[in-house]
């Protein structure tokens, strides 16, 4: 599956070194989102960038063994359901839809819990959708060659 570019040892070593830090940075952006700039959208794209880099360097087949297509598809829905689930949970706790105040006894900590869960849902969905987009476009090209 390796093409010409990925056979370069520089690229494969650099991408191996970068893989974990990119994800760590993604997680930082994700969970720092309620204090500073960041949040689910940006973090999701950063985390997806790590996986897309892996697929680009080591080939689509290895990328799809790392993130199987079905798992990816389920995670897309899980992210959305996590977001919507927080909304439904707040209805069960006698609040409005997505009313974070009722998630905890203290409204302020309720807001924290709510925003972290919702942003996590956004992050999961954005990351998996980005990976799915890359994989589907990449596999389209492979099947034609």
């Amino acid at each position, binding site marked *: 599956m390796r093409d010409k570019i990925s056979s370069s040892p520089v690229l494969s070593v650099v991408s191996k070194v970068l893989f974990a830090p990119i994800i760590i940075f993604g997680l930082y952006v994700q969970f720092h989102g309620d204090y500073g700039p960041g949040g689910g959208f940006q973090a999701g794209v950063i985390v997806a960038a790590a996986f897309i880099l892996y697929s680009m360097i080591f080939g689509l087949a290895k990328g799809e063994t790392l993130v199987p297509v079905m798992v990816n598809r389920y995670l897309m829905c899980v992210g*959305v*359901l996590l977001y919507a689930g927080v*909304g439904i949970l707040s*209805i*069960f706790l*006698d*609040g*409005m*839809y*997505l009313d974070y105040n009722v998630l905890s006894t203290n409204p302020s900590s309720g807001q924290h819990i709510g925003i972290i869960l919702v942003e996590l849902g956004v992050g999961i969905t954005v990351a998996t959708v980005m990976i799915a987009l890359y994989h589907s476009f990449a596999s389209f090209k492979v099947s034609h060659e």
Partner: protein
Amino acid sequence: MFDLFLDDAPALVVVLPLIASAIIAFMPSKIWPWIISMIVLVFHLALSLHLIEEVSISKIIIYEFGNWEPPWGISFKIDGVNSGLQILFSSFVLISTFYSRKIFLNEIEAEDTGKAYSLWLLAIGSLNGIILTNDIFNLFVFLEISALASISLISLGAGLNRKALLAAFNYLIIGAIGATFYVIGAGFAYAMTGTLNMNDLIIQLSQYSDGQLAIFAGMSFMLIGLMVKAAIFPLHIWLPAAYSYAPSAVSTLLAALATKTILYFFARLLFEVFIIYENYLIIFLDFILFPLSVIAIFIGTLIAVYQDDIKKLLAFSSIAQIGYITLAFSLRDHSGITSGFVHIFNHALIKGGLFMSVGYFAILYKDRVTLSSIKGFGYKYPITSFALLICGLSLIGLPLTNGFISKLYLFQALYINQMYIPIASVALSSALAVVYFWKIVEQMWFSDIKPKPEKEDPSIYFPIWIITISIILFGIYSSPIIEFSTLSADYLTQGLQK
């Protein structure tokens, strides 16, 4: 326990289909996606009925998402304007989902039905959001979700005809341009007023009553964006291909509801928000929307007369029918807005019924339904053909059908405003509608072949007949539609001077 949900009905009618859409994506593609869709839409109808009951008591419901007060948070608003549309929407999606099962099984591959229902519910949830939202940016989000879901649904028609892909792509590009225009306009409005909430926008805009160029530019961008989405002539070019190459169940949903919800919002934006600039509104309605509607009525019908492909014929007739609605709105008085809403209701039923019947013919004939292919269908499939006949007569505007009520109110509104040329144009277009519908009837009943009747599938003709009976029912007893439309017009004419 159930009360807990009833309080949140405005959010749930949008959220439930969206959640179910994500759950269905997990499902193996058998019968489950359809069963879950049906269950969700039954709840949807129950919640809508509850909303109507609430609105009839309290007149207006504002639902604040996340308990953030408007204008800071996003809010949904249900009042006299959209309560009737909500009930139409909710009942029609239930019937068309019931109808869709066998059609999807025949028209798209079995492994795709799960995806199809996931997208189907996504489209339903987002179109419902367009009806309820009270926030101009939130509307853009729903416009985009509904467009993307319907584009994917249209492209599922590629299994039958590869042209579906081209139709979906055209809709994607043109729809995206429309949505971009809308969001640029909303951006202008936000830059000038600092608000996205429609009620607050009315207050903030009235500060600039002398008129600011940026606001006029913003309003124009928003209106043109919505005109693209609502397929108002001459911005309709995406519509005929999109409706005719989509799977039949999808054509039904889109033709009946997609443009109608956007026309509703168009009216709401014009008569509730932009009414502050009456001069601008008069110029827009009298010199842009009015002539375009008259041309649309004429051109749409004329092109339909020359169509051979029946789904395309119906799509072009939709452009003329959208012209009737916008013509009614362009009269900018109580009678005009009433007749516009009456036709939104009636046309949704008529076009829904027509596309449903033709969709059934398409799976029976296993190819595109053209005039030559339906020879003798009146004898071969009498039950469905008869439903098609009634829907078609209603489209022409025959008495005892709801199409007659539409035409009556439109003529009345035009007469009050002394618009004699449009009356002639509407009458001429009705006459031409007889021509193209007669071509269908001629092939179905008066061709040289008279085949024996064949068995028809009750699970398909049952929903078709529900729509057909409602067409006759609302033609005889039209007061529910008239009441809802008058109520809408009452709310929307509060700001009008005349």
